[in-house]
């Protein structure tokens, strides 16, 4: 029965291989199998989440090698939550892509499944080197997806993305080598036990390894000053891929939470809270830079990219406090910011499709077709993102503001979060009024647009993409409506992370517990 825990990794990888081998010429078949595979993974992740919600830490030993000698998959509340979030985003994005974006290049669906395998693997694994391997899997798939339907501009941004991430991977290996060199283990639970016993003479190497890892995860999570790759990459790739990449930055956030709270947390002896002095300042700078970028953007995609950076800043501000209440607030904000980023990327694509040659640039152009509906979506999305009541952005920021009030730096954090929210509101209001209101003053008989008319008039006929955007927005509404139960879940998650005794016992104690369990069954 516990084999089901490996399915979120195994199923997409098998599906991808089958797609490449057996159905590479049949796009319809690929769509059906792709969506079916993601739906199954979604069902499994709901099942896993329900089990994890009870506080149980599920452990799956690959090849039945007991930890710490073999590699384990360890699923606690956090991993289950991330798995479910990934599945939801992936399913919606895949439906959106199946409405036409997957025809621009070959093997979109196979790459998508590999990407999913890498993401799920990164969330489920309980071993740092295995985390590196899954990072590579998801990166290789993301290189393919990023360049899907190539053009010179995408290739140029893609080259930067690949080189930055390859350097990041190399640093990851350096960090892993240093940590292994002084602790002799790479299993996360085992590390959480052993880092406390590292002698003072080896502390420098251990902390060097730990901080190198912070750089690696910071690259993934677009933490300033390691964010330069993000706007160019996300704005030049195809929109469904950008929406899926909304979860990629969260992989970095997940890894930082896992490593710096559960391993280098309170129980780590001399290396306790090793990321503490670095994360909060970097997060605040990220926050400001992202929101200023929103204000300065000259195109909608560029604006959404910077809003992703800004929301990562907010998220890391909460995580960087390193206390359970703030971590819980950060996790709630993580759910919100993933859904809203994906929704905005897809929505902006729909707007750009209907603006002809003006595309997504913030310039005067006639109001796009179905302008009222799109304006409504944009309004809801902007409210949710900026953190205005009543949507989940407001609740998320409220949780964070509430959680930091006992931190000595709270005036700074409050001031920056509130000020940057204002910047975001101005940025989004300016963009929305330019596209949907001022556009009304422009006559439709713009000569440039008439040439492009047939191309973009044909697009609005399909309701599926808009329905997907609506579902993402509904997701943030659900986050708002069920804020109390979700809040309880993330509180329990944060408690589990800050006191990883259950996690360690579940992973390391399995070797002795397993036989008795079988007898009971």
């Amino acid at each position: 029965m516990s084999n089901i825990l490996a399915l979120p990794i195994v199923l997409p990888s098998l599906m991808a291989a089958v797609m490449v081998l057996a159905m590479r010429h049949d796009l319809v078949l690929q769509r059906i199998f792709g969506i079916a595979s993601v739906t199954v993974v979604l069902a499994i992740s709901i099942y896993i989440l329900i089990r994890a919600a009870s506080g149980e830490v599920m452990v799956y030993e690959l090849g039945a090698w007991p930890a710490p000698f073999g590699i384990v998959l360890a699923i606690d509340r956090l991993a289950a939550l991330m798995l479910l979030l990934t599945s939801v985003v992936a399913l919606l994005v895949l439906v959106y892509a199946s409405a036409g974006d997957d025809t621009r290049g070959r093997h979109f669906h196979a790459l998508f499944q590999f990407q999913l395998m890498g993401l799920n693997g990164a969330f489920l694994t309980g071993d740092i080197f295995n985390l590196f391997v899954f990072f590579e899997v998801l990166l290789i798939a993301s290189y393919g997806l990023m360049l899907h339907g190539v053009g010179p501009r995408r290739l140029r941004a893609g080259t930067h993305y690949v080189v930055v991430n390859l350097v990041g991977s190399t640093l990851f290996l350096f960090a892993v080598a240093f940590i292994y060199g002084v602790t002799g283990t790479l299993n996360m639970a085992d590390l959480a036990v052993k880092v406390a016993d590292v002698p003072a003479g080896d502390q420098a190497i251990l902390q060097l390894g730990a901080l190198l890892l912070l750089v690696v995860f910071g690259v993934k999570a677009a933490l300033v000053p390691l964010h330069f790759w993000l706007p160019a990459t996300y704005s030049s790739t195809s929109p469904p891929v950008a929406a899926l990449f909304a979860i990629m930055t969260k992989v970095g956030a997940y890894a930082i939470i896992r490593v710096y709270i559960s391993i280098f947390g309170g129980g780590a002896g001399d290396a306790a809270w090793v990321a503490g002095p670095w994360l909060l300042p970097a997060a605040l700078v990220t926050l400001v830079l992202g929101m200023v970028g929103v204000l300065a953007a000259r195109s909608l995609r560029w604006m959404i990219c910077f809003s992703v950076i800004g929301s990562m800043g907010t998220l890391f501000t909460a995580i960087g406090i390193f206390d359970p209440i703030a971590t819980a607030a950060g996790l709630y904000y993580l759910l919100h910011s993933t859904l809203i980023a994906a929704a905005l990327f897809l929505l902006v694509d729909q707007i750009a499709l209907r603006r002809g040659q003006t595309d997504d640039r913030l310039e005067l152009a006639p109001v796009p077709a179905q302008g009222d509906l799109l304006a409504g979506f944009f309004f809801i999305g902007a409210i949710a993102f900026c953190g205005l009541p009543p949507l989940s952005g407001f609740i998320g920021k409220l949780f964070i503001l509430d959680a930091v009030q006992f931190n000595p730096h709270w005036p700074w954090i409050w001031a920056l979060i509130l000020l940057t929210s204002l910047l975001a509101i101005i940025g989004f209001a300016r963009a929305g009024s330019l596209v949907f209101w001022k556009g009304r003053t422009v006559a439709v008989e713009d000569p440039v647009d008439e040439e492009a008319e047939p191309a973009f008039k044909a697009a609005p006929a399909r309701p599926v993409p808009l329905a997907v955007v609506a579902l993402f927005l509904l997701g943030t509404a659900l986050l708002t409506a069920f804020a109390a139960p979700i809040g309880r879940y993330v509180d329990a998650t944060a408690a589990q992370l800050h006191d990883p005794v259950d996690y360690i016992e579940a992973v390391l104690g399995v070797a002795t517990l397993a036989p008795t369990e079988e007898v009971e069954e």
Partner: protein
Amino acid sequence: MELLISTGVGVLVAAGVYLVLRARTFPVIVGLALLSYAVNLLIFSMGRLVVDRPPILSLHLDAYTDPLPQALVLTAIVISFGMTALIVVIILRSFLETGSDHVDGDEEGRLTETGERSGR
């Protein structure tokens, strides 16, 4: 031997970082390769430098060397080999499409400006 290995790793990293920061794509590829060699050596040495011992535990032997770093290095080599192949293809494609081997695709490197302006 410790001095030799650590100097080797240091020189490789220094050369790799220098080359990765070059403006042409070919030195960048070579630099990435050098960095991956450096990290492979480092991982290998993290199992401690032991000469003439098998990487396996056996009742007939009284000493062995740590086998795990060797397995890690093997994985790292395979991955970095694959990545090198991938980046060569991407950069070659980029060169063929843009007609320039500059990392920004053209001599002025106007990624942000044109990047923001042109469509997809």
